[in-house]
């Protein structure tokens, strides 16, 4: 019970602290206003020019032609500047020369396999910016699948089973890459060859959900806001030199862990609610797209809030000083933001993303909005929870010996 009271009062304290409100609510909203005004709802030239993708589509069936149509559509060109290559060797060469960031491969027999109800795959190979291409392709494929499923369910009233997934292909000698596998299987032979493609053809690029600049930056700015919350974590364990509050807290007949957890919970909830304010603001003022699974989005934000608070505590437990902890926290926020795609989706430090909570959160939130495959979501969720566990285990181990601080 004391934990909850401690959390409640910590929350109230933050609500009434004008400095905290400015940093975690007014500042990010100002940034979004600036970005929103600057982009006017569209992606910038820099944005679209930097995401260069190639495609190798020997498949002349409905899948190949559908994806080609998608990639050449004007709306998609705003996001992905794609170039056609006749072979993978050419695409790899172009990627090595820096002409493209990645390329999409749809093998020759993809349409035929799907028509025969066999598993088929669409691959994305590349060193960077695969997330954006992933988003576009996944959204497109899922739109097709969803329509197809809907058609099946309504027309045949038969359970329809879908399997699909994305695997990170670290064994690729050329580069780390992403691999999208999509397969549509019918548990019975009800579906007639070609039936699914009737729905496929009805899909136009305009039906595909695509993130506009404000959608993208709303999510990424929001994630940066959460990482800025590590300041709150640092403050939890920083001794206030002007106050003796730490003496009073230690004199209490209460475990330091009770007070610490209360503060962590209170600050995390405050951070989460500051995210909600940002989400509401971007949704109603800039009409940013938050039309996804709100439960997943909320869960991601609350977990990231806890990670951020824990990160602040962990950093301070190593530095034992406010200013260095703040500096390190800022650097981590900067690198994780850049690596996660907060500045521009084109500049990513892929290797850093393995330990980057912003990256995993971005994948999960975009996944919740743009229907990423389940395996992508599970992997990102696993990554996020692993980071959460590592941070709190480390912090607890470090704080075990601390007995005189502002907890």
């Amino acid at each position, binding site marked *: 019970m*004391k934990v909850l*009271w*401690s959390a409640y*009062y910590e929350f*109230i*304290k933050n609500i*009434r*602290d004008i400095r905290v409100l400015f940093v975690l609510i007014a500042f990010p909203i100002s940034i979004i206003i600036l970005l929103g005004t600057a982009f006017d709802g569209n992606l910038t030239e820099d944005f679209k020019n930097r995401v260069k993708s190639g495609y190798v589509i020997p498949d002349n069936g409905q899948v190949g032609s559908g994806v080609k149509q998608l990639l050449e559509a004007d709306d998609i060109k705003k996001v992905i500047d794609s170039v056609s290559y006749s072979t993978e060797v050419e695409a790899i060469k172009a990627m090595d020369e820096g002409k493209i960031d990645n390329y999409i491969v749809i093998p020759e027999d993809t349409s035929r396999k799907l028509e025969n109800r066999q598993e088929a795959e669409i691959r994305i190979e590349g060193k960077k910016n695969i997330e954006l291409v992933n988003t576009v392709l996944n959204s497109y494929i899922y739109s097709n699948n969803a329509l197809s499923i809907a058609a099946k369910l309504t027309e045949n009233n038969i359970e329809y089973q879908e399997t699909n997934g994305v695997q990170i292909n670290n064994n690729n000698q050329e580069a780390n890459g992403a691999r999208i596998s999509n397969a549509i299987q019918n548990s019975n032979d009800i579906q007639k060859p070609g039936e699914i493609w009737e729905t496929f053809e009805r899909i136009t690029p305009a039906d595909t959900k695509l993130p506009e600049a404000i959608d993208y930056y709303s999510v990424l700015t929001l994630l940066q806001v959460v990482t800025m919350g590590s300041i709150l974590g640092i403050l939890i364990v920083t001794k206030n030199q*002007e*106050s*003796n*509050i730490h*003496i*009073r*807290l*230690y*004199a*209490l*007949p*209460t*475990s330091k862990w009770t*007070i610490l957890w209360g503060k962590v919970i209170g600050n995390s909830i405050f951070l989460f609610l500051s995210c909600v304010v940002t989400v509401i603001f971007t949704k109603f003022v800039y009409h940013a797209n938050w039309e996804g699974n709100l439960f997943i989005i909320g869960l991601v934000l609350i977990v990231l809030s806890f990670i951020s608070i824990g990160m602040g505590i962990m950093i301070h437990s190593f530095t034992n000083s406010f200013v260095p902890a703040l500096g390190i926290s800022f650097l981590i926020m900067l690198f994780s933001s850049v690596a996660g795609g907060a500045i521009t989706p084109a500049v990513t430090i892929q290797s850093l993303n393995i330990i980057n909570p912003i990256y995993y959160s971005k994948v999960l939130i975009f996944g919740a909005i743009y229907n990423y495959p389940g395996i992508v979501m599970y992997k990102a969720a696993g990554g996020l929870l692993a980071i959460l566990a590592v941070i709190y285990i480390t912090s607890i181990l470090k704080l075990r010996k601390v*007995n*005189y601080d502002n907890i």
Partner: protein
Amino acid sequence: MIVEIKDVVKRYGDRIAVDNMTMSVREGEILGLLGPNGAGKTTLINSIIGITEIHSGTIKIFGQVMSQNNYFVKKNIGVVPQNLAIYNEFKAYENVEYFGRLYGLKGQELKDSVRQALEFTGLWERKNDYPNKFSGGMQRRLNIACSIVHKPKLIIMDEPTVGIDPQSRNHILDSVRKLNEMGSTVIYTSHYMEEIEALCSRVVIMDNGRLIIQGTIDELKEYIQDEQVVDIVLKNYNYSLTEAVKAVHGVKECLVENRRMKIVLDKSSSLARIINTIVENGGIITKINMEEASLEDVFLELTGKRLRD
């Protein structure tokens, strides 16, 4: 004994903050802990509370060895830290309520206790104001209210009157007396000896982390009463007067400034003989004043320095 401290040593690196300290606090008394800045008072207080781990020795409170996890003891102690320990983001009522909750109070008991603490410190009328709207004295009083909300048996006050106006100081001193009358034992640290003299029944003097002396105020004064100070104002003065007075048996020191002669003499020596010597040497006395020893004199005598050095 409500507090027993035996052979306590606390070091910070090579520096010894508390050096082999042994003292005790009796139930129902106000014990003054006196010493200059850096004497080790706050370190000793923090050790008693359990915040600072001691290197050796034992501290027993209510008969139990004090430790960070001794919640029984902690529940019965109220701590008024040297600096303010209140949240400016909470109203006065919320501050007291918050700490009351963490002391385990709830429901009507909590409400009553918060009200009593605020009324006791004269802040009930300002309960809905934020502390940053308060004067320094009122903030200090709120600091005390947060420390007594759970009605502790032992209250430890670490220089609670530093930097406040005389009116608030008097209010706080009155509060300490009332708390003591209501049954609380008080450990009161200060480097204002007049506060200690006015409040405390017993005094412990510390310097450089060591116990210099402990006892009642009368006992301490008695300790240095083997000498007395006489202040004599003269109408006329010549150098031979000083030499003549210094020659009197029992006179330890004779200082003259602007025809004012300050003489330190043994308790056994005769004041009449000094007066006769002055008169015989042509001096005309206009005023004689015998100074009573103060705690400051005690401290000066024992440590060779003043409290506010």
